[in-house]
């Protein structure tokens, strides 16, 4: 007896976006699907990709990370090589957090030099993140755009600075990550603004702001689902691959507190906390995950089905 499954057909398709690689590297292409995630239906030409974060500036590492990525703190190029080489990260998110005045205030030219260094250390695709300080970023993004000798993505463009970020990206052939604070409408608005500037849709990723497990993950989950459903239903401004940072998972006390005896081993728990955050993002429809724990690259890739 055969049962007719009510498999939804969607009129829309997510734009395929490629994060270019350097010579000898493997570019990452995500998007291109016309169906919901994880399911063997419709077309999924590209699997979601798992990458890792490389950052400048001080970061207090929880126990689960201290032993793994700890030794690379302060050496972005070595960290990048390790992530892409040994840990299997398909792309890198290079956060220039160290340029923030409150995080040591590295100079803009220093930030740009780090970008150059990382790009020559590995051919893996790179997304470069600003430091989050509006005024510093206003100088940093143009400098990075110019310093990057191969195409990267700049993260992130938001309503306040999109002209500047997208302008810098356009001038040097980079892509952008469009950011909005857990709000589907603001996500769409950002993409319409970018489109008004003539930014090519196949060079845009959506960062919906990822809440960590236990701390707002559910809002992100639903926003990703809605962005994806809207994109598949034909809303072109939302038909973009979605990028999730799992870093917020490490802000949770549950991921870092070694003192709670009944919570189990803090290393395992921390890893699981990030992994669970990532799995929820994948279930909702995320296309790119940025994780911190090396073992989660493989773990999460285990659910990155096509």
């Amino acid at each position: 007896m055969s049962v007719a499954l009510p498999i939804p057909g969607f009129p829309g398709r997510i734009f395929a976006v490629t994060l270019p690689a350097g010579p000898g590297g493997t570019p990452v292409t995500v998007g291109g699907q016309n169906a919901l995630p994880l399911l063997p239906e419709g077309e999924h030409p590209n699997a979601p990709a798992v990458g890792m974060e490389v950052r400048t500036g001080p970061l207090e590492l929880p126990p689960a990370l201290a032993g793994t990525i700890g030794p690379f703190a302060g050496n972005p190029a070595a960290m990048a090589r390790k992530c892409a080489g040994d840990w299997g990260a398909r792309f890198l998110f290079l956060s220039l957090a160290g340029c923030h005045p409150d995080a040591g205030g590295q100079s803009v030219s220093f930030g740009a030099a780090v970008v150059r260094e990382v790009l020559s250390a590995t051919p893996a695709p790179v997304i470069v993140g600003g430091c989050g300080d509006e005024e510093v970023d206003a100088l940093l993004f143009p400098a990075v755009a110019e310093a990057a000798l191969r195409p990267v993505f700049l993260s992130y463009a938001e309503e306040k600075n999109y002209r500047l970020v997208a302008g810098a990206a356009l001038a040097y052939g980079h892509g952008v990550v469009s950011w909005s604070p857990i709000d589907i409408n603001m996500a769409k608005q950002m993409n319409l603004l970018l489109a008004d500037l003539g930014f090519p849709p196949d060079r845009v990723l959506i960062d919906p702001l990822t809440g960590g497990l236990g701390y707002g993950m559910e809002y992100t989950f639903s926003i990703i689902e809605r962005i994806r459903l809207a994109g598949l239903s034909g809303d072109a401004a939302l038909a973009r691959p979605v990028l999730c940072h799992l870093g917020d998972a490490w802000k949770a006390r549950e991921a870092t507190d070694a003192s709670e005896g009944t919570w189990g081993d803090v290393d395992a728990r921390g890893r699981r906390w990030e992994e669970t955050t990532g799995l929820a993002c994948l279930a909702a429809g995320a296309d790119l995950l940025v994780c911190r724990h090396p073992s989660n690259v493989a773990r999460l890739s285990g659910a990155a089905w096509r």
Partner: protein
Amino acid sequence: MALTAIDIYKLLPKTNCRECGQSTCLAFAMQIAAGKASIDLCPPASDEAREKLSAAAAPPLPKVTIGTGEREVVLGDETVLFRHEKTFYHPTAIAVSIRDDASDEEFASRLAAIRRLSFERVGQRISVDLVALRCASGNADRYARAAVAALAATGLPLVLLAPAGPLAAAVEAAAPSRPLLAPPPEDLAPAAKLAAERKLPLQVRARGIEGLTVALAAARAAGALSLVADPSPETPREAVSFATNLRRLAILSRNRDLAYPSAFDLGGGFPDPFLAAALLVAKYGSLLVLDSADPADLLPLLTLRQNLFTDPQRPIQVEPGVYPIGAPSESSPVLITTNFSLTYFTVRGDVEAAKVPAHLLIADVDGMSVLTAWAAGKFTGESISKMLAGCGIGEKVTHRTLILPGMVARLSGRIEELSGWRVLVGPQESSALPSYLRRLPPAAFLPVHG
């Protein structure tokens, strides 16, 4: 398709007679459309309306209960495919397994471990819901004794994973606790009979959706009515696909033959059970059986479940309290706003942009914006003064000057009067904060004496 309020209105008498307790027929139609009222409350409704509306109101996915009393576990009874469409009502139930062939000591310590899988998070208790008792001994007596012991030790309802013989013995010993009978596929017939006789829930296991069609029909034929469908996947990927399609068949196709809560046994060598469990919590698993009793596994899974099964219509709120922005000192400005998350994000961003380190007080107003909260009487001179006194900001700064959102400048007098703090009226618009903060003379935040 669900009927809209206007569709329903057209079926009503349109007399606004108010017998239903609503002010107009349209109001009543909106209540029905939202699932908050039933047509029975409208005495003058026609038979046609009654018939059409009760058919539309029946839940697409039936409810199955396991256990009794406080620990009762409810599966199914969902109405939507995506939580943002309304909400998910019944969280994925999580069972941790135990084998009946363990030594008494091991058995007891495992039960104790299971009992400890219960955590306090954001004011809620999140716990493993059931104990899944695996029959590994093949011995009916032993299995029945184990069931009784597990019940006694944990108080949690049971999933009885056992062949017909031991299953019958355990039911004999533990039926009033309303366990879920989970026989292997080959023992479906006797177990279904048992479930029918004892009016107990039955987990029907068969390979895939096609297999379930046959097996569920057989269970129904044997008189078992409270059913849970286990499509027995071999990989996590298959599990997600089966779970999704079972839920779609119930909600989109209204296929009564397959509309049952789903169950998955992720133990006994199932590949990557943790990954499968996390995905099934997100995607339509109604009951999961896990072999792991490691809190490092269960705490994240239970937290994910807690997150995804909250009502998405609750406004996004920020935890109230004192938030440092930059590295504020004892003479840094103190600002206040409400705990609606967008308000918080905006104000925070603008204060950061000012590059003036500051203390940001987030008041608890149930996630309303400043003006809404003020209009609703939640953001008042009284509540703000209370917060100033109770949140510990007095120890963090030596001055007593508060910057109040310009939109509620009217509160300043009352705050000054009640709290003894001086109030500076900030700008109307958060976006003007950077220039406002930079212009403030440092003298505004000198320590108070006496």
